[in-house]
């Protein structure tokens, strides 16, 4: 995947057209949305993918170019010349990590990555020590982030009894001074930042200029305005000159605004009566050779800031009390794990399951790839969930409706056969509704009893059912209902699934011949071991291209059903036929149809495939744009049990952040509607990504839900009638800045 990404970026950025070839064995784009990226790389960017084995690279003396020698899929030896060769290299643990492990006494696996087990993916061998990120094994950003939150979840479970005990008591602010009605009295503080600003800009003339501006009642320059003694001075000056607007000209508001806002708040001013000018990062540092023009720029920037400051108004920070109760939808492994963790953290949790009993899809899975007993795990998990006093389990649940926002949701359900409506008040929602196995139309799956899906085969193996008793030839076909037109995504786990079944079958019955027909083997990370093992144990892997998939025939000979699988062998390049006793299909994982309803109910999006779409693919893998709602497990994307457990704990961890606060304080910079100007055209409602705007049907005007509004201003900029404005970045304020151009 990394290789593909670099290839695409290289093509996009190079002036001259690039020809890029990616030499590969298998393309392992198993991550969310990766498969689509892979397809685009092939179709739109014409990146050439060459399934091959490279065995040599030589420099060509004449050109200095590189000659790549490789064997293609058919085993023919080829050579090709390239300007540049880039190697995709693997990851290995740092030696420091290894020594650390020794010191704290946690065991490593044979590759010196931290040892973990499938059901405890972030637990080290030593209780109380957790692991996350690449030290546990090679992985991508989202997995890393999830593991981090997951580790946090377990830690806070252990520490829940002492939560908050180290918090020094709440800071007291002086009563806020009422400045409404006062003419602006602006105090301006110009920072030298040592020589960072003072070394380039003419601070004296800045100060001179600022003094001349209307409404400026005090101007000062400081060596370091951010220093604690200057904070003291700022507070004094605010009192002494009854300053009601503060402007600081120094560095970037992105780093320092909070500090100064805190300061003026301590001086009894509303923190939003503050404006910052960036005369360092965006002035003195970047115009070092043009001090005069830089000083002129700084003057303009300060002038602009002051003209905005004149119009600053105190903003109220909306604060909401939260209900410290969790709601988890879905009683599979994902749901149970996150419910359990929240309970262990000391929060009441409601766990909703639409089926008769807990367990979900895992009830059909018997072992993990490395042979651990899934059924036992589910049993234990179910027990600890149902036994936990803080978890209320509801089965046969229908969700009728849900309303509210972060910290304050109300959801109405019915449970069991009873008609009466249960109303649950909760502060967060975790969506863990899972997914299901695709029921193939292909390959007579529905017609022949000897064509089956891996899940069914797995239970046959576990139960030693006689269907598989003395079979000779078993054919497994991968990517059935995945990576196709209709479902252009990779189901991620099927490859390991088929290998797992193959190995288990082989142990039961060493005589059996197993053929795995695949497109790419995607046994990522440590699963690769089992791929290797499978090959060693004589399981036959045959690669096929989607253009000519295996052809399964079903005949009856003397009333007995006979299955034959025909396929072109890419290596020998000729067709060959297998008489199969069993054909097992690695059927894809598909999202639930009911996801749509939930996505509307909780105002969270689905991706094109119908799985829930997180707020940020890489950095916020369990969050939604809508605060207080989280996702985990198969509802998010196909994934292994371990990955599900990690994500479930991650979701619990994120939720606990909200649940552990009595009140959530929201930014004051939210949108506001002027009813008299609003025509109720609904444009704002449509552009709001946070569903914070609704049109009041009676008055036909827009209404902002301040709890949901993030203050992006998209609605404001869209409103033709100027009926919406944004606190902190109002039209008037921006206009006043433009006026000083």
């Amino acid at each position, binding site marked *: 995947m990394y290789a593909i990404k670099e290839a695409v970026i290289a093509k996009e950025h190079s002036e001259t057209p690039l020809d890029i070839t990616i030499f590969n064995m298998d393309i392992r784009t198993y991550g969310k949305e990766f498969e689509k990226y892979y397809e685009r790389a092939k179709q739109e960017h014409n990146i050439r993918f060459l399934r091959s084995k490279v065995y040599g690279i030589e420099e060509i003396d004449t050109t200095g170019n590189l000659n790549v020698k490789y064997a293609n899929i058919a085993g023919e030896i080829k050579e090709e010349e390239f300007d540049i060769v880039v190697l995709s290299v693997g990851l290995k643990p740092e030696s420091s990590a290894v020594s650390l492990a020794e010191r704290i006494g946690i065991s490593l696996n044979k590759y010196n990555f931290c040892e973990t087990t499938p059901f405890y993916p972030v637990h080290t061998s030593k209780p109380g020590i957790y692991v996350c990120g690449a030290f546990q094994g090679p992985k991508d950003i989202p997995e890393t982030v999830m593991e981090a939150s997951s580790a946090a979840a377990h830690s806070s479970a252990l520490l829940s009894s002492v939560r908050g005990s180290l918090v020094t008591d709440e800071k007291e602010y002086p009563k806020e001074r009422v400045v409404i009605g006062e003419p602006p009295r602006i105090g301006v503080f110009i920072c030298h930042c040592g020589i960072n600003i003072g070394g380039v800009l003419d601070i004296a003339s800045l100060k001179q200029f600022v003094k001349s501006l209307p409404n400026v009642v005090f101007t000062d320059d400081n060596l370091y305005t951010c220093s604690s003694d200057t904070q003291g001075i700022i507070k004094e000056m605010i009192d002494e000159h009854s300053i009601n607007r503060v402007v600081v000209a120094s560095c970037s508001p992105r780093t320092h605004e909070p500090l100064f806002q805190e300061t003026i708040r301590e001086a009894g001013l509303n923190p939003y009566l503050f404006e910052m000018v960036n005369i360092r990062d965006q002035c003195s540092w970047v115009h070092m050779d043009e001090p005069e023009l830089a000083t002129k720029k700084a003057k303009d920037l300060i002038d602009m800031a002051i003209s905005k400051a004149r119009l600053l108004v105190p903003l109220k920070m909306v604060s909401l009390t939260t209900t410290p109760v969790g709601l988890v939808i879905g009683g599979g492994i994902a749901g149970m794990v996150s419910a359990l963790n929240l309970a262990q953290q000391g929060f009441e949790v409601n766990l909703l399951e639409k089926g008769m009993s807990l367990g979900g899809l895992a009830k059909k899975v018997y072992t993990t790839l490395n042979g651990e007993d899934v059924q036992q795990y589910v049993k234990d998990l179910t027990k600890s969930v149902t036994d936990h006093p803080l978890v209320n389990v509801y089965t046969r649940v229908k969700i009728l409706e849900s309303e509210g926002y972060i910290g304050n949701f109300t959801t109405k359900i019915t449970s069991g056969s009873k008609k009466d409506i249960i109303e649950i008040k909760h502060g967060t929602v975790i969506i863990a509704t899972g997914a299901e196995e695709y029921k193939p139309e292909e390959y007579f799956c529905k017609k022949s009893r000897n064509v089956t899906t891996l899940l069914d085969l797995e239970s046959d193996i576990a139960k030693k059912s006689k269907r598989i008793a003395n079979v000779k030839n078993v054919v497994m076909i991968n990517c059935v209902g995945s990576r196709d037109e209709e479902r252009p995504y990779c189901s991620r786990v099927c490859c390991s699934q088929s290998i797992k079944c193959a190995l288990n079958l082989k142990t039961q019955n060493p005589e059996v011949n197993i053929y795995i027909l695949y497109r790419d083997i995607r046994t990522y990370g440590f699963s690769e071991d089992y791929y290797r093992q499978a090959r060693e144990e004589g399981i036959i892997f045959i690669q096929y291209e989607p253009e000519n998939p295996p052809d399964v025939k079903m005949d009856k000979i003397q009333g007995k059903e006979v299955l034959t699988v025909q396929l072109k062998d890419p290596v020998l390049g000729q067709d060959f036929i297998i008489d199969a006793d069993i054909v097992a299909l690695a059927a894809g994982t598909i999202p639930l149809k009911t996801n749509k309803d939930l996505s509307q109910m909780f105002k969270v999006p689905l991706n094109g495939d119908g799985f829930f779409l997180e707020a940020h693919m890489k950095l916020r893998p369990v969050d939604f744009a809508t605060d207080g709602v989280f996702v985990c497990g198969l509802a998010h994307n196909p994934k292994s049990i371990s990955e599900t457990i990690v994500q479930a704990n991650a979701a619990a961890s994120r939720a606990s952040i909200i649940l552990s606060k009595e009140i959530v304080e929201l930014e004051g910079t939210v949108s506001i509607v002027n009813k*008299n*100007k609003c025509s109720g055209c609904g444009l704002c409602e*449509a*552009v709001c990504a946070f569903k914070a705007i609704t049109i009041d049907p009676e008055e*036909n005007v827009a209404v902002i839900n301040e709890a949901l509004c993030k203050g992006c201003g998209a609605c404001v900029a869209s409103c*033709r009638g*100027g*009926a919406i404005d944004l606190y902190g970045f109002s039209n008037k304020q921006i206009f006043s800045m433009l006026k000083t151009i």
Partner: protein
Amino acid sequence: METNENEIRLTVKKLFDEDKIDILIGYSPGTLPLRTSPVFLRKEDDVEVLVWNSFCENTLSNYLKNYKDKRVGIVAKGCDSRLINLLLLESQVKKENLVVIGVPCRGVIDRKKIDKITGGMEVTGSEEKEDGILIFFDGTDKKVTKADILHDSCMICNYKNAVSSDIFIGEKEKEEKVDPYNKIREMEENSTDERWNYFNKEIEKCIRCYACRNVCPMCYCQECFVDCTDPEWFGKTAEIKDTKMFHIVRAYHMAGRCVDCGACVKACPMDVDLRFLTKKIEKDVLEFFAYEAGVKDDEPPPFTTFKPEDPQEFIR
């Protein structure tokens, strides 16, 4: 035409008799040659005043905003029906309160073109014939074929019949698709200076009476940006530096909302070529976002939505 006129009257009568509507918005004879005038009928009024002819130039859907909670019947040309769709999309009218009487439209005549024919002489009378208009002026009369005096936006109209209506009057007009953007393409071909000069020459004429805005059904803002004083978006003078801004923004606000009914140009007393701007935006909206205003009543307008693959060549 006459037959349709009668059918309109009968239909309206029926609607009143069956108490389907409280008010009917239609056309009545004008007080001047070549003119008709909007009329608002109640149950008690006489439907015989209703007319339907080539002089029905006004865009009646503009009046819907005045009768939000009344049950309104409206005589709708193709352009009006598209505007009604847009007003529905922007929830400015309630479907349940509306009876749209769709009429097949052959286009309305442009008085300003006739003015050219008479060389500025006042037209003292006019008669509509099947194949054209007979006009009287300066003591003489002249027969002009409709094609020569059709309004520009009617000449390139692709929706001669109401795109959606509750009742449709008479036979549907034949609609053969024409390319509406030739003029715009020619303009785009011109040099920057030519375009700038044309723009200025046109805007210069504006006396800022706001007729263009006030006759537009889509200009329903409680307070137009140009009237707003807090903040003052743009200056209020009739000088070109300000009127320029008014017209640029007015056109921009029409993006994906203009059906080229021509109401603004028909109303403009100074003959400002307003379509020069709105038509361009209409073209861009179609080319950039594959959206045609008001043709469907369920298609989200361009600024309410987006596609990841929207054009962005212009962005660094």
